């Protein structure tokens, strides 16, 4: 099995707020991330696909195709967007790194038909990221 990884970057804004909590609790749990007008990040997304190279093309999947899928499913949805208000899949959820990574996994997994989605790693900053794997897969 071979793993191939493609990286993209997008910029988006978000805020952390749970309407079921009081303003004080929101502030205590989420700190500055609860500021009402939100703030933004340059997100870096690494998508890893696992598979056997095709004997004719030598490819697990055509990177151009993966690039197109990422453009359509992620960039188009999330780049230069306010994640809380403009991304339907995140409606009603706190757009943490964990939740955004999970949504990206759920968007990509059915679209990747050559090879198998192995890992989604989303960096919110150089020091904070979330990884998604298929349950039971080895990292």
């Amino acid at each position, binding site marked *: 099995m071979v793993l191939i990884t493609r990286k993209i970057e997008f910029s988006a804004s978000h805020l*952390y707020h749970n309407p079921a909590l009081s303003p004080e609790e929101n502030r205590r749990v989420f700190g500055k991330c609860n500021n009402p007008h939100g703030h933004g990040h340059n997100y870096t997304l690494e998508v890893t696909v696992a598979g056997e190279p095709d004997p004719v093309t030598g490819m697990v999947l055509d990177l151009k195709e993966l690039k197109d899928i990422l453009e359509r499913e992620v960039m188009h949805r999330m780049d230069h967007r306010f994640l809380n208000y403009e991304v339907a899949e995140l409606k009603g959820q706190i757009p943490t790194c964990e939740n955004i990574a999970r949504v990206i996994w759920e968007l990509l997994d059915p679209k990747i038909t050559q090879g198998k989605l192995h890992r989604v790693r989303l960096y919110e900053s150089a020091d904070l990221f979330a990884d998604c*794997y298929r349950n039971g897969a080895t990292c």
Partner: protein
Amino acid sequence: MGIKIELGRRYRFAASHRLHTDRLSEEENARIFGKCANPYGHGHNYVLEISVSGEIDPATGMIANLADLDSFVQREVIEVFDCRSLNEDVAAFRKTVPTTENLCIEIFERLKGFPKGKLERVRVQETTNNSFEYAGK
């Protein structure tokens, strides 16, 4: 089949060490550890990367609150190792060579008790060219 989600976080600390063991002769220490056996030690800017898994709490969207994780790592690792001599200041390395392999194991042992998620692995980068990982036994 579901998804497994891990939260990854990086921390930095600087420390000195000397690779040397009393169980070997000075010649053997010099042969095995080379410059790393120089008597007064030397230092590195270590980068620690940890991964914690768990369920996402629907109320917060988080596996673990970063403030809780950061304060735990600060107390258990950064305050213990940062700007210290690993050989002289950390009890675990009085008898054990403070290679980065052993440092990974020591950090894993210190962090595995994090109460709000499961510690999956630690990765320690000693320089930009060397990194080490440990995920428990």
